């Protein structure tokens, strides 16, 4: 099989890249591990304050529908239930549908593999019923199944608070949001108020001692300065943050750097989102996890770069468009995650050399600290 652009991952970043490339006449193939497009947006029933402007009023699943509709007219070749499993000697990608493997020859590759949730280990954390926050959300919103009747959340990001609300709305008793530190991670006061109105306790300075249960979780033992407490639960949600998903980059021999703020090991890339492997680009959360907006905007940026390198757009137009996307990203992240923004620029600088990001003219950004 041959294609101009092979996109690995059909989530928001892959679809954003697909739109930019396919709408300029390139032949685009998306491979997607699940049976549907939209990625993690599909189970998001909340809206996000750190989205690009035109998506801020919409829920996650509505944004997914929006994006899928947007790429529809361009005849993108979508291979669901397919994964990238290796690289042939001649540079073709080995794609598998779980039965057969076949080579795909692509002029350019955009890896939009996303991020995976990080486990929060404590004694007996592997008991059935203990799951990631994302898993619980998939169950209630995508698969429409109740994971149980009473739960507790470990971790206090905005995602944990949104999930607590959503679990409550489907009739699950949420016995608390547990945070080991003295401050919760979430900054949004409205969401904190909402959770307090629902009488969901926010348990700061509280750590998890262990889980108990025969064959599945029945009790979570937590401890605060008031002593240990045994919470009767039938499932537990862990909110431990996310890491970029890297297998595809390892297959393509892309170099990586460690950036704690971006989520750990991150593929190296330049201002065009091209990795150390020529013709292999990166988009979305695998460029580093900073804001929801970055997922879409890095997807668009990598797509524009690919169009430019394949001669579908001239360099003047390309640099104008890229500046617009970078500007939008800056506008969002200076409000919600300036640290993430700075870390991304440092990451690019670490790969391209000092002051390399200065070539993004006119936006007036600086690395702070």
């Amino acid at each position: 099989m041959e294609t101009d652009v092979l996109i690995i991952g059909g989530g928001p970043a892959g679809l954003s890249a697909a739109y930019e490339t396919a709408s300029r006449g390139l032949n685009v193939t998306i491979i997607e591990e699940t049976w549907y497009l939209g990625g993690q947006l599909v189970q998001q029933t909340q809206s996000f304050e750190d989205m690009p402007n035109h998506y801020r009023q919409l829920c996650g699943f509505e944004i997914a529908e929006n994006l899928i509709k947007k790429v529809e007219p361009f005849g993108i070749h979508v291979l669901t239930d397919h994964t990238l499993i290796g690289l042939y000697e001649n540079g073709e990608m080995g794609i598998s549908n779980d039965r057969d493997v076949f080579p795909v020859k692509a002029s350019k590759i955009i890896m939009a593999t996303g991020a995976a949730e990080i486990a929060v280990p404590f004694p007996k954390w592997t008991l059935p019923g203990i799951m990631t926050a994302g898993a619980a959300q998939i169950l209630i919103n995508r698969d429409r199944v109740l994971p149980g009747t009473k739960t507790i959340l470990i971790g206090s990001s905005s995602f944990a608070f949104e999930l607590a609300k959503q679990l409550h709305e489907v009739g699950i008793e949420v016995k608390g949001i547990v945070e080991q530190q003295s401050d919760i991670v979430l900054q949004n006061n409205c969401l904190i108020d909402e959770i307090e109105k629902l009488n969901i306790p926010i348990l700061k300075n509280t750590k998890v001692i262990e889980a108990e249960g025969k064959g599945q979780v029945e009790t979570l033992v937590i401890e605060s300065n008031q002593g240990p407490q045994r919470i009767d639960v039938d499932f537990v949600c862990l909110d431990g943050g996310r890491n970029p998903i890297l297998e595809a980059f390892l297959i393509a021999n892309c170099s990586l750097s460690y950036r704690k703020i971006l989520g750990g090991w991150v593929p190296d890339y330049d201002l065009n989102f091209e990795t150390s492997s020529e013709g292999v680009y990166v988009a979305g959360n695998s460029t580093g996890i900073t804001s929801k907006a970055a997922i879409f905007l890095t997807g668009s940026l990598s797509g524009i770069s690919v169009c430019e390198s394949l001669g579908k757009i001239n360099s003047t137009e390309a640099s104008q468009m890229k500046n617009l996307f970078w500007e939008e990203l800056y506008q969002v992240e200076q409000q919600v995650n300036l640290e993430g923004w700075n870390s991304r620029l440092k990451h690019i600088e670490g790969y391209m050399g000092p002051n390399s990001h200065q070539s993004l003219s006119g936006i007036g950004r600086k690395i702070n600290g």
Partner: protein
Amino acid sequence: MEITNHPTLGKQIDEEVTFTFEGMPLTVQKGKTVAAALMTHRVRKLGVSRKLIQPRGLFCANGRCCSCFMTIDGKEHVRSCMTLVQNGMNVLQNNSDPNVRK
């Protein structure tokens, strides 16, 4: 425990599918993964760990952690969170490593 009237997504009643788990027939609405279908029937333990033989269940629901390995239609170590449940599917717990020499 299926959510037929979702507070945000509204009402949805899908066609039913019947599969077997350890020989026991179970019915759910279609469009779910095997792991979610079992969760509907309060089955949490999907198998055991390979070394310490401890119970394992759905953990990440995203095909990453492999905690939900099961034997599906004779194929061992299938991620039950990434496989849509289908009529007549034969689902067994993952209780050991596959015999690769047979």
